[in-house]
């Protein structure tokens, strides 16, 4: 019993630690290290994004994507002309496909979606 009492007393003694005089300074040092880590992480993500963007842009240039888009525009125009010849009642489809706007709208939506996904991923990290 005396042993148990002593062990409880010892636990209390261990728990009674006086606040050190530089407690606030210590906490600020830890906060600074946290901030530094956070800033470094953001720079890393940003740098990775820039590198990824540059690689992506160069790949687009290499693969002649603009030429392909022009071809797709021509195809869309040809399709809309063909469809308007087939049926005069399909005016709405011609409006939709005119000038290859669909291609550009789809590309824009894809970019917005990718931006959204990227934002979520960065948020999760």
């Amino acid at each position, binding site marked *: 019993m*005396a042993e148990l009492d*002593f062990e409880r007393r*010892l636990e209390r003694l261990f728990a009674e*630690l006086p606040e050190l005089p530089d407690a606030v300074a*210590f*906490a*600020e*040092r830890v906060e600074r290290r*946290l901030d530094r880590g956070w800033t470094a992480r953001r720079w890393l993500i940003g740098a990775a994004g820039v590198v990824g963007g540059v690689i992506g842009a160069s790949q687009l240039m290499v693969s002649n994507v603009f030429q392909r888009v022009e071809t797709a525009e021509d195809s869309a125009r040809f399709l809309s002309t063909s469809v308007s010849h087939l049926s005069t009642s399909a005016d709405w489809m011609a409006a939709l496909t005119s000038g290859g706007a669909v291609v550009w709208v789809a590309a824009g939506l894809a970019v917005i979606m990718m931006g959204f996904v990227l934002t979520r991923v960065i948020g999760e990290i």
Partner: protein
Amino acid sequence: MPGSGHSRFASLHDVELCAYSATGERRAFGELVRRHGSAVRGVLRRMGAQGAEADDVAQDAFLTAFERIAEFRGEGTFAAWVKKIAARLYLRRLQRDRKLGALTAEAIEDEPETPRGDADAAIDLEEALKVLSATERLCVTMCFGAGLSHTEAAEALNLPLGTVKSHVKRGLEKLRARLAPEDGAVLEGRRGNG
């Protein structure tokens, strides 16, 4: 700027601060460090870490705690959780610096003399711990200060469970002789009668 937003979190409970910290709120975690930093540093000093070393390990322990805050389920107190992390980090540092083996090998033969305490004198724990050998101090502080079980301490120290229990027992006897000599006399009397 560190320290700003301090007042916003000062009134919150540890559990709420942990919840904020889990969302990445660093100022909330800073408030936890302000509250429990001294306790964590104190445990490390009692384990035998010197001032600057104790502070380094304590900082690392808090950074680790921030990274792993989602793992903290609130089953014990936040302070106890960080103390355990700090104790393990300190042991890892000792192992890395190859000091742990030397400390545990020194153990039994090379024990310091245990002076008898004066019941009337106000002897604090810090002074009492000085009469323990390095291993005994580590074991007792890990179990009573950092809240590790004997098994956890044995695993962290890489020592057999029985050895850790022996160190704790011997350490407690020395502390009792120092902090509560009257209890020791009672125990001796009981042993003599039994």
